[in-house]
């Protein structure tokens, strides 16, 4: 049996609906149609009345989910694309994220964001929004890079008593396959060493983990051993695992598909320089998408975002220092 990243997301929702009758799914076209990407395929029929089509009203989708949690529900929301969650930012960042701190009453909603670029996606169907949400107190932001993580972390997201922004990468939906779904996995909040090495550390997450792995293969042929840390969760960030890796390698490259200003890369570099400055043998580097909207044409898009070649080139610079 082989299962894709997308199927893992469907399976996690299937299991959550089956195990907990307070779970329901709400999003555009998620009902009998099964969602724009089919992440809720067959679920409406299997769980009548619990997989509900929403109007194109991201604000009201999230606002109503927040209200439903007060009645003991655990809503799972699907944004059709991460990009459209901007319409819901107020409800996510000001309503959901502030509730526990203001009132002591938890707000367990999960907001699924089909994220990241694909060929031909263009400026408004390609964005990576994790840093925007991570900036707000009161949210947990997850960025699974593997089929196993997509499954176990989504189940954990639904069980967590806080609002979770679940950034699932569209490029990985069909490209990534696993033999089976995991019974056990690392918990949310722990990073994973995706590849062990000793000459430099790449800290990355989501689809970029796979680009970094390819870059590491390339560098291995040149005699370099690259360690890759897959953050899994960008908020919280597992600073421990990052520092331990930098302690082993002395060199750090951060890679993210998001826009360059601020963000996860900047956060990781800031933590490493302030807490692990003495561990560094070279100035830390970062690689992001370019500071323009995301281009439509595949040739432009491939250059806009980091990819194995640009990661390999950055690593060579870092190793030469």
């Amino acid at each position: 049996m082989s299962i894709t990243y997308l199927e893992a997301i469907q399976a996690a929702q299937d299991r959550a609906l089956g195990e907990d009758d307070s779970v329901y799914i709400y999003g555009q076209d998620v009902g009998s149609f099964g969602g724009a990407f089919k992440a809720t395929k067959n679920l409406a029929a299997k769980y009548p009345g619990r997989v509900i089509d929403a109007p194109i009203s991201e604000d009201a989708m999230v606002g109503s989910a927040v209200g439903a949690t007060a009645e003991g529900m655990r809503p799972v929301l699907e944004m059709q694309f991460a990009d459209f969650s901007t319409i819901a930012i107020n409800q996510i960042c000001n309503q959901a994220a502030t509730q526990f701190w203001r009132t002591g009453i938890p707000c367990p909603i999960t907001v699924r964001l089909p994220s990241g670029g694909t060929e031909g996606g263009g400026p408004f169907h390609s964005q990576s929004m994790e840093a925007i949400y991570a900036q707000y107190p009161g949210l947990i932001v997850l960025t699974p890079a593997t089929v196993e993580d997509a499954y176990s972390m989504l189940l954990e997201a639904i069980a967590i008593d806080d609002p979770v922004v679940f950034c699932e990468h569209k490029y990985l939906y069909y490209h990534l396959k696993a033999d089976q779904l995991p019974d056990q996995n690392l918990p949310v909040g722990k990073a994973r060493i995706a590849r062990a090495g000793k000459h430099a550390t790449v800290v990355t997450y989501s689809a970029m983990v796979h680009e970094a792995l390819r870059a590491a293969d390339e560098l291995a042929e040149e005699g370099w051993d690259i360690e890759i840390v897959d953050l899994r969760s960008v908020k919280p960030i597992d600073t421990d695992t990052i520092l331990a890796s930098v302690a082993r390698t002395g060199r750090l490259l951060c890679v993210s598909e998001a826009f360059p200003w601020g963000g996860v890369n900047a956060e990781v570099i800031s933590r490493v320089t302030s807490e692990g400055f003495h561990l560094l043998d070279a100035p830390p580097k970062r690689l992001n998408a370019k500071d323009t909207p995301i281009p439509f044409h595949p040739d432009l898009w491939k250059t806009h975002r980091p990819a194995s070649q640009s990661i390999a080139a950055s690593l060579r610079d870092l190793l030469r220092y």
Partner: protein
Amino acid sequence: MAEANIKEGKEPLCESGSHYQAAFRYMLLARIFEERTASLYRAGKVVGGVFMGKGQEAFSVGLALALDQSRGDVYGPLIRDQAGRLAFGEALIDAARTYLGSVEGPMRARDGNVHRGDILKGMIPMISHLGSHISVVSGRLIGKRFRGQKDIVGGVCLGDGATSTGAFHEALNQAAIEKLPLVIAVADNQFAYSTPSERQFACADLVDRAIGYGIEGHSVDGTDLSLCLETFAKATARARAGHGPQLVVGHLLRLCGHGEHDDAAYISEEKKQGAFGRDCIEVARQHLIDSGWSTSDEIEQWTSEIQQQVEEATLCAQRESGPDPFQETWQALATTRLAEGLIEGSPGQ
């Protein structure tokens, strides 16, 4: 106008002496409390701001008294709903504590003034962003529907300005699709801060929007307590009986500044003298006397009792401690294991 939709069924007339008296006393309590809070603000004892519901008490109390907290009804008040909050069941001391920054208050001094509520008791703690609490009330109704709870109504309050938000539109449309038992009370007080209604919307009466959403609408003179009680009783009964969302627009005038920092010099004399410029409390007081339900001596008696009650609440809240930054958890997550700063090895605080 959408009101024309509502013909069938004579709802029981809610106007009885005792009901009217009870409503009036909440109005008076709200007015006197807010005036006291405003003077504490001017004396520098209240920080942030004070936002009064002066002139809107009848409309506010109308909705809240039509709801029943004990059966599970939900209430989403906004800035000018002190009267409604009290009528729905808020303890006066909780209002005083939140204004005065007591840690004993429902928001533990983490939030202030009108940004308070009690989720477990069905009162939504509004955030500032106008329009965003409507869908939260809807969500509670959706949650209750999942839980099989029946005959429940949600009431939500806002001003004319908030009807211009995308959140308002999304929420009304969503509530209409889901046929939720939601009563939306719009207090058209002719101003949003300093912006007059003609710069806010271009329809003749905001109730006309009900038609576009496919919901029932009611328009009422918000300065007349009898009409407010009656209209909300009717709208709430319709919602409870499964007729879907009810939009109730009250026509009135804000008889104060936007907040106590604002002298509202932009409100013209003409508006103040206009049909909706009268003070609903004076109108109700007169009605109590004219109908023989109360004497002016009795009303005087209530007033001094209420003054006493307000004095006690504000004094008590003032005596209580404010928050201690060193006792704060500084934790925004319910899941302690995942709170940044507490994770092993993450930046120490």
